[in-house]
């Protein structure tokens, strides 16, 4: 079992829900994105997601697109994002890298797997890699002890769900709604039935992302699942506070969401 999966399972065992913040590497700049990830880790976000900017992010809405463009303009690359991950080594955190496939192909699957492991990357999420095409990357990563995190969506059929969960590891990423990042999320009832449907296939920890825009949605998500992933809402705060208030605004939202998650479940 990978370190990522161990950590996610242990947390569930302890009855703690996970908040996974997503930030784009190099946005608003390299230092700030690193500081924010470290600050989240110190607040108890055991898993953090580092988004590698890509020129054509087809799974992302306007907010992450804008952050990606700015980060690319600032010179961010996959190699430099891996360097950022390396700098998180002293934090008690499982860094998970979110990258589109092409930068990985360009570096080479084996080279990417080696560098990821060396940087201390615990998992990798590739939003444009369907389960039909995952085998080569999964093999390369698992040779290095890095988890390839799979995604399932509300449109995923039972057959596909069975095939995906058969090889999934780390945690399973539940895409809450059919749509791009930053859209409105599913309602609580739909989230519950989606999560129930996935649980019939796997006992992996289930983390819900897409449209988790604040404390209320995060809490709804973890009433059904084991964790909530928040990206666009954090990045929007950076976009809305271009001067200096961005870091505080992001961490305030993280604190609100963490507080909502640690409140005793009432359902």
């Amino acid at each position, binding site marked *: 079992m990978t370190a990522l999966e161990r950590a996610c399972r242990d947390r569930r065992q302890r009855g703690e829900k996970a908040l996974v913040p997503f930030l784009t590497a190099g946005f608003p700049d390299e230092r700030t994105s690193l500081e924010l990830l470290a600050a989240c880790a110190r607040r108890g976000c055991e898993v953090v997601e580092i988004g590698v900017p890509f020129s054509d992010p087809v799974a992302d809405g306007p907010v992450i697109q804008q952050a990606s463009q700015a980060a690319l303009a600032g010179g961010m690359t996959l190699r430099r994002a891996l360097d950022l991950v390396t700098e998180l080594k002293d934090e008690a955190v499982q860094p998970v890298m979110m990258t589109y496939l092409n930068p990985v192909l*360009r570096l080479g699957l084996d080279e990417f797997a080696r560098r990821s492991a060396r940087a201390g990357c615990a998992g990798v999420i590739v939003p444009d890699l369907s389960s039909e095409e995952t085998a080569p990357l999964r093999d390369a990563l698992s040779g290095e002890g890095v988890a390839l995190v799979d995604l399932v969506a509300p449109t*995923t059929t039972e057959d596909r769900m069975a095939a995906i969960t058969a090889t999934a590891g780390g945690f399973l990423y539940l895409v809450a709604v059919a749509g*791009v990042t930053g859209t409105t999320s599913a309602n609580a009832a739909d989230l519950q039935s989606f999560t129930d449907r996935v649980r019939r296939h796997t006992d992996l920890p289930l983390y819900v992302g897409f449209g988790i825009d604040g404390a209320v949605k995060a809490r709804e998500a973890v009433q059904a699942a084991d964790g909530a992933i928040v990206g666009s809402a954090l990045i929007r705060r950076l976009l809305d506070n271009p001067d200096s208030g961005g870091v505080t605004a992001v961490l305030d939202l993280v604190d609100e969401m963490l507080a909502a998650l640690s409140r005793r479940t009432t359902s």
Partner: protein
Amino acid sequence: MSTEITRAGRFGPFGGQYVPETLMPAITELAAAHIEALADPAFAAELDALLADFAGRPTPLYRARRLESVLPGEAQVWLKREDLVHTGAHKLNNCLGQVLLARRMGKRRIIAETGAGQHGVATAAVCAHFGLECTVYMGETDMQRQRPNVQRMRLFGAEVRPALTGSRTLKDATSEAIRDWVASVATTHYIIGSVVGPHPYPSLVADFQAVIGREAREQIFAAAGRLPSHALACIGGGSNAMGLFRGFLDDGDVRLVGVEAGGGPEGHAATLGKGDPGVLHGTLSLLLQDQDGQVAPVHSISAGLDYPGVGPQLAHLKDSGRLAVASATDAEALDALRSLCRLEGILPALETAHALAHLQTLAADPDADLIVVNLSGRGDKDLDHLPPEVSA
């Protein structure tokens, strides 16, 4: 066949399905609908009737004698007149096939991307014909340089949404269409306009464009009593090229030649010539990219060739030596456009003009004695943006 598909949707190493999981069920459903439709005589009958009555097929194969007279060598040049297809380009062949598939799948809303606007117009036309809701994504830059086609789409009742990101061209319009589809996949079919995208699109679009090559093969036999020495087409994503080439893939003696956008000082869009393997918009093919795997900015005077990717089957045909790849610059394309106007009274699209430009080189080859060119579209859409020295 000379282009073995190694497994579903693979052409040698190229092809595949690189899309978000949200889309996979729809793509799987589409692949099944395609296979079912191919086996259904009623589907073929309905499509054939539309190709005849709505599209105006078969299109003529026309010998361009005055053009021949100014080319080096003795080659005969025959133009496959896809510019005479309703809406002005080969794009309608694919749209008719796909809209019938959408109807079989019960999808009532259609989306498309467009560069030159020809695919957008063709999509808007089939949606008007069948009373379907239609949204077309088009880069803001392309909306400016192909304005007449924006008007035509709107007249046909389509909503044209500008793509405002990146280079604001075909690549960005395609990304926006994919984003729309991820959110609307339950009710919406995405009519991709070229032999790109995830499996089954490259095969499916080629199947619907293969009518070009089927007709051309018969017509050249009837006219010249033999197969051509060369089949020539421009390549953006590659749909008009694959459509023509499909008629001759198994005829090893027929040389296949594709012409990409050589551009100018601002850059180029010669993906087959200069790209490296990479994944964009759902398929592994050749791709113009930087050393970090970011998609490179590209340039062509013609919006329909201004794309950093190319169909996976063409990448494989090139790698296996079956396809020869050339390029023509912006300036050469403009010259070729002008000569076809003056010599034959035919105004080709700027995309098509790239294929015509290569005739200067190809006709000098002593082996090139009988050339079939895909005249993929007409150039009315380009009139506003021709430099004065061309239209004067």
